[in-house]
């Protein structure tokens, strides 16, 4: 998928001006995922302790990733499946196409897969004459609208129901144009009726994977709709797209992470469907795929191991970080310009496509730390955003005005006497000018702030001078 992350500022402004998006974001933050997460976490006293165990499981696996990948591959093959390794998106797409062509596939259904988005699979297959049908309701909606997902687990969360109804009316031409589509239930029922024949006709089903189990060679998908299951049990061939870091050693390890996943993601005790798939159908089985292929994608992850962004590979893609991010809640997911939005996207995107392509993203954060505090595997997202900011600065990617401003600030900050004097002068001056009103409607060089809100005026003294004065007074006593 083509990255537009460099346009973050412009896209963010467009997001702020988009009323439908703002309404959808309000719904999410005010009565959606965060409050549901809070309720369900309160019902599980062990939740905090589980976060620590989840972190340990992922760290252990990553430290021995080569071993677990080889064990996993061995067990997939032993259960009758096939493993394909892909270094790049191009290699992964080619493998999918080869499997589809070998199967003589005319129609392909897809469960939700972020890896498919990452490798641009839909566009690639369409150019090759195969149109995959997205079956997750959110993914189906954005496929009709030719949009990328705006959220990890709720791809159409940027839309209000009227927009979904419009998309359905223009796509489902054979239905009565005057049918009522005002309620989410009606929209859901219509998508169900439209997609059911597609499920039944598909030759190949493509799903992602939430976890891969090394011990058994199994893949696990977690859904609420059941689309991922119809996608994999009805067609003749099941293709699983997964990245390397989805590995866990055993079912026991997966179970711990599953206890964290739904609670952190949607605020459910457990998602409706957690499905463990191992190989193709067994002799005597009446249904299930005849062939089972797993494509393991690297795309830069092996290089992340052991480095500053190693911890990002623990991510289990729950979306809690974006659900709790004030920046995401203001501008929505599309502003981030690539596949992964929110705080996890601001860290992962530069790792996968390069900081040159994603330079603004690490700055799309107030570093308030909410993301880290809700992360089920305790990824230090703010720390890693700071690492990216340092690299961005070192590579001279930030706009010149920022860079010179930071240079001036650094020069002053390295000279404490000068720094204290200047801050004291500035506090007193601004305090005096701010006067009775106590705030500024506009300030030179700070229009970005005062354009949308007032700037509070300082009290009149700097912290440093107050501190020095009080220390002196305390010393006299």
């Amino acid at each position: 998928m083509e990255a537009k992350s460099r346009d973050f500022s412009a896209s963010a402004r467009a997001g702020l001006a988009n009323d439908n998006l703002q309404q959808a974001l309000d719904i999410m933050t005010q009565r959606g995922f965060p409050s549901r997460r809070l309720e369900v976490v309160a019902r599980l006293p062990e939740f905090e302790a589980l976060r620590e165990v989840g972190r340990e499981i992922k760290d252990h696996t990553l430290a021995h990733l080569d071993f677990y990948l080889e064990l996993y591959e061995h067990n997939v093959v032993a259960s009758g499946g096939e493993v394909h390794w892909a270094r790049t998106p191009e290699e992964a797409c080619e493998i999918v196409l080869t499997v589809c062509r070998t199967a003589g596939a005319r129609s392909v259904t897809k469960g939700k897969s972020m890896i498919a988005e990452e490798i641009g699979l839909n566009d690639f297959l369409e150019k090759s004459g195969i149109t995959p049908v997205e079956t997750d309701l959110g993914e189906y909606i954005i496929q009709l609208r030719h949009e990328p997902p705006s959220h990890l687990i709720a791809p159409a969360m940027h839309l209000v129901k009227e927009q979904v109804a419009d998309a359905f009316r223009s796509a489902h031409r054979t239905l009565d144009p005057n049918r009522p589509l005002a309620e989410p239930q009606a929209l859901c029922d219509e998508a169900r009726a439209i997609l059911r024949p597609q499920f039944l006709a598909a030759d190949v089903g493509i799903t992602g994977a939430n976890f891969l189990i090394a011990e058994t060679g199994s893949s696990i998908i977690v859904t609420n709709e059941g689309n991922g299951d119809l996608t994999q049990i009805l067609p003749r061939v099941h293709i699983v797209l997964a990245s390397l870091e989805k590995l866990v050693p055993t079912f026991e390890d997966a179970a711990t992470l599953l206890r964290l996943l739904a609670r952190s993601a949607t605020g459910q005790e457990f998602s409706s469907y957690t499905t463990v798939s191992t190989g193709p159908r067994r002799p005597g089985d009446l249904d299930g795929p005849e062939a089972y292929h797993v494509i393991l994608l690297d795309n830069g992850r092996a290089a992340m191991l052991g480095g500053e962004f190693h911890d990002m590979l623990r991510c289990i893609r729950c979306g809690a970080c974006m659900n709790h991010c004030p920046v995401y809640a203001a501008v929505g997911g599309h502003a981030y310009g690539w596949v992964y939005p929110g705080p996890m996207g601001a860290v992962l995107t530069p790792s996968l496509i390069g900081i040159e392509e994603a330079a603004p993203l690490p700055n799309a954060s107030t570093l308030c730390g909410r993301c880290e505090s809700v992360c089920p595997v305790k990824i230090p997202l703010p720390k890693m955003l700071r690492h990216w900011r340092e690299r961005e600065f070192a590579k001279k990617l930030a706009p010149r005005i920022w860079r010179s401003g930071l240079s001036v600030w650094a020069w002053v900050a390295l000279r404490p006497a000068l720094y204290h004097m200047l801050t004291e002068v500035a506090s007193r001056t601004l305090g005096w000018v701010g006067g009775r009103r106590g705030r500024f409607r506009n300030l030179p060089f700070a229009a970005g702030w005062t354009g949308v809100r007032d700037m509070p005026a300082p009290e009149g003294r700097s912290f440093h001078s107050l501190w020095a004065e009080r220390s002196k007074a305390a010393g006299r006593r």
Partner: protein
Amino acid sequence: MTAARDAILAAIRRSLNRGPLDPATAAALRARVAAHRRNLIPMRAAALDHPARVNLFVAMAEAVQATVARLSSIDAVPEAVAAYLAAENLPAELVMAPDPGLDQIPWEMRPLLRIRRGRAEAADAVSLTPCFAAIAETGTLMLASGAATPTSLNFLPDTHIVLVPADRVVGTYEDGWDRLRDLAGECGEVGRQLLPRTVNFITGPSRTGDIEQRIVLGAHGPRRLHILVVEDGGA
């Protein structure tokens, strides 16, 4: 493709600053896998006796919009199924897993109930399946595929009825998975080769919140999930 495989494994080892694992470490990792060591298990279900576990299973399943009927024996199943279908205004017709346990049920008590055995087809509106285990922790059904238990029954029909003998209610996911491993042991084969193609953990009916975060039921899987908990352990 071995080129890609070798390159990826080499890149991983380069990043981790080492070569392939030494035999001692590899043996320790294999032992870790074989031990099936459990991580932290929530007390919620683990600490309960059996009757309390069944009660918790029922309460958790009902909390996610499954409906539950508790029956004293499998002799009550035909009546319960017929009554449920009538109450939901559904035709007295269903597709049933070709499972010998379900054939023990005295279906002749309800001769008007039309039953087909096999996998689900597009037109089937109601299915009836056994279950491998039921997990109290979150009201979750654990269904394993096999010749007698096709997976399509769990997803294609609009209404899914599941028979849960009370003695199959366990506390946690790990308890359920251990039962699967035990089954492999009884047959004297390694667990891996006997794992069913598909193990479904099902918690309530199909749902979606993809439009304005409003939860609606019946996205692609069953709209209704009805659970019959049978006390005497039959079927």
